């Protein structure tokens, strides 16, 4: 990221700069501290910290990770998260890009209403919709091969659908803005070549939207992976919980052992942290897409 253009004058007053760095450095370290503390705690043995207090050094071990992984069955829960996150993100991007394309490409009197309907849906408080949705999910049957609960409730399908429905609005909004900025001539050329609407969407628009799609995909993966509420209320079987919501179940098992809690927390955070450090640019761009000129 490049810093914004400043007024261009190098100030001769250095102390101000030093103070600025001191301040920002202190804040940054303070901000990182809770995370670093969790990492530090996770690598120490419970016996050592119980005897010497947490404000001490020593008792280094990786046992907490081994124990946490085993007792909490992280492997299974990570897999559950993948079952939900991957299809949900792909479906969200696909459906949202379809709507965004129509909104951006055609002038149509319901465009604004449509955009508002999708965007607002993303902002509604989810708890306010829980009652009817909960009831609906317990009424809608699924064949046994799709879900062993034979209902939309307590199934991966239900969670995928609800995540898609909620995240669509955000992506429609971002993508339609992005698509509106594409040059109109492209479509004229495509139409001269006889491309129908679907090809204009799939072969002309979508490849050009790759940067926006990548940014949104990064963001949506973290959001849906981090999603806690729907999985907590629309799932019953602990074994099927995605990893973020399974945390709450793990808490009971880890109750008295903060070293284990921190190892578990670090494990849950790892996927998002990896994404964050590898795709930081995409992540930030996704969040701020449209807020700046880029």
């Amino acid at each position, binding site marked *: *990221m490049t810093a914004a253009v400043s*007024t261009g004058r190098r100030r001769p007053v250095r102390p101000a700069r030093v103070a600025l760095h001191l301040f920002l450095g202190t804040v940054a370290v303070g901000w990182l501290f809770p995370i670093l503390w969790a990492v530090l705690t996770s690598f120490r043995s419970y016996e050592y910290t119980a005897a010497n207090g947490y404000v001490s050094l020593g008792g280094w071990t990786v046992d907490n990770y081994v124990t946490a992984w085993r007792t909490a069955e992280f492997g299974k829960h990570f897999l559950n998260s993948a079952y939900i996150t991957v299809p949900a993100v792909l479906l969200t991007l696909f459906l949202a890009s379809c709507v965004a394309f129509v909104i951006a490409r055609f002038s*149509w009197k319901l465009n604004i209403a449509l955009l508002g309907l999708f965007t607002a849906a993303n902002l509604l408080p989810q708890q306010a919709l829980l009652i009817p949705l909960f009831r609906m999910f317990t009424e809608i049957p699924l064949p046994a091969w799709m879900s062993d609960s034979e209902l939309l409730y307590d199934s991966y399908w239900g969670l995928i659908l609800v995540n*898609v429905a909620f995240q669509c609005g955000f992506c429609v909004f971002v993508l339609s*803005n992005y698509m509106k900025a594409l040059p109109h001539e492209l479509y004229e050329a495509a139409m001269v070549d006889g491309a129908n609407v679907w090809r204009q969407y799939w072969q002309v628009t979508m490849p050009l939207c790759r940067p926006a799609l990548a940014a949104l995909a990064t963001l949506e993966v973290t959001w849906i992976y981090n999603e806690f509420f729907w999985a907590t209320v629309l799932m019953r079987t602990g074994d099927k919980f995605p990893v973020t919501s399974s945390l709450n179940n793990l808490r009971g098992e880890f109750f008295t052992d903060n070293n284990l809690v921190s190892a578990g927390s670090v494990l849950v955070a790892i996927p998002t942290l990896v994404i964050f450090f590898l795709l930081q640019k995409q992540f930030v761009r996704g*969040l701020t897409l449209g807020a700046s000129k880029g």
Partner: protein
Amino acid sequence: MSDLPLIQADRAVPPPAATTTKGGRGRRLRLLSRTDRVVITLMVLVPLLLVAGLVWLPAVATVLLSGTNWDGIGPISEIEWVGVKNYDDVVNIYPPFVPAVQNNLLWLAALFVVATPFGMFLAVLLDKEIRGSRFYQTALYLPVVLSLALIGFVWQLIYSRDQGLLNGVFGGETDWYGDPNVNIWAVLVAAGWRHVGYIMLLYLAGLKGVDPSLREAAAVDGSSETSTFFRVVFPVMRPINIIVLVVTVIESLRAFDLVWVINKGRNGLELISALVTQNVVGEASRIGFGSALATIMLAVSLVFITIYLWTVMREGKR
């Protein structure tokens, strides 16, 4: 998770292609072939049905149910209309309601008065050309990638009575998460920790979209950095200011995960969102009553969603 509301598209400068008027880029639907029209209809209809069915239909149903005495078990035909009785009960005979409203307002106040301005302030500092800006930014928005549920756990390591850092260093006996007199403040620190980074990120992006020539002009006129910010930059950023404020309100209203992982929103951590959830998945399944609580949330949020949409749509049109 979707607790991060969106914040897009207040374009400081609309791209040239976006300024086409009716009839320019846009084509009328009736000029299209039949297949094309079918394709377009499907492209809109499928996502629309999903969002309408899973978001808007439940929203309307919540409002309707709030006027009934449905217990959630009996057939729909036995539902009786009870008017505003549920609202009356919520306000008058439901002890957690008042604390929940107070906590939601406190949440809003803390984010609005402390976390949001602090995030904006950091963004302004980071917007200057300074070395190591990237490190500072990364450190500040790292919490944004963590789920709020996880943040509840991370901060427990600091707040825990027997094993926490706070009591370890200061030797107190406070149960920061458990004591109903202090736990809301402890939670607010954790919530603010994340909110600051988020606002910083959004605001920084907004600042980068401000036309540099405005500042240059102000500097040439001899305006100080501070007065340039308040007199030139801040007013130009009106749309993002509004969006940041609306985001803060919506975040405060939707706050849920953090208190739910701590104690399911009881014992000092009551929030309206947690009360709604308790009334559905908890031991007491009082549908009409829970719906009244939910409708209150809906009504408040719709006001701010409208402001948000109005702001972003107007900016998009310009």
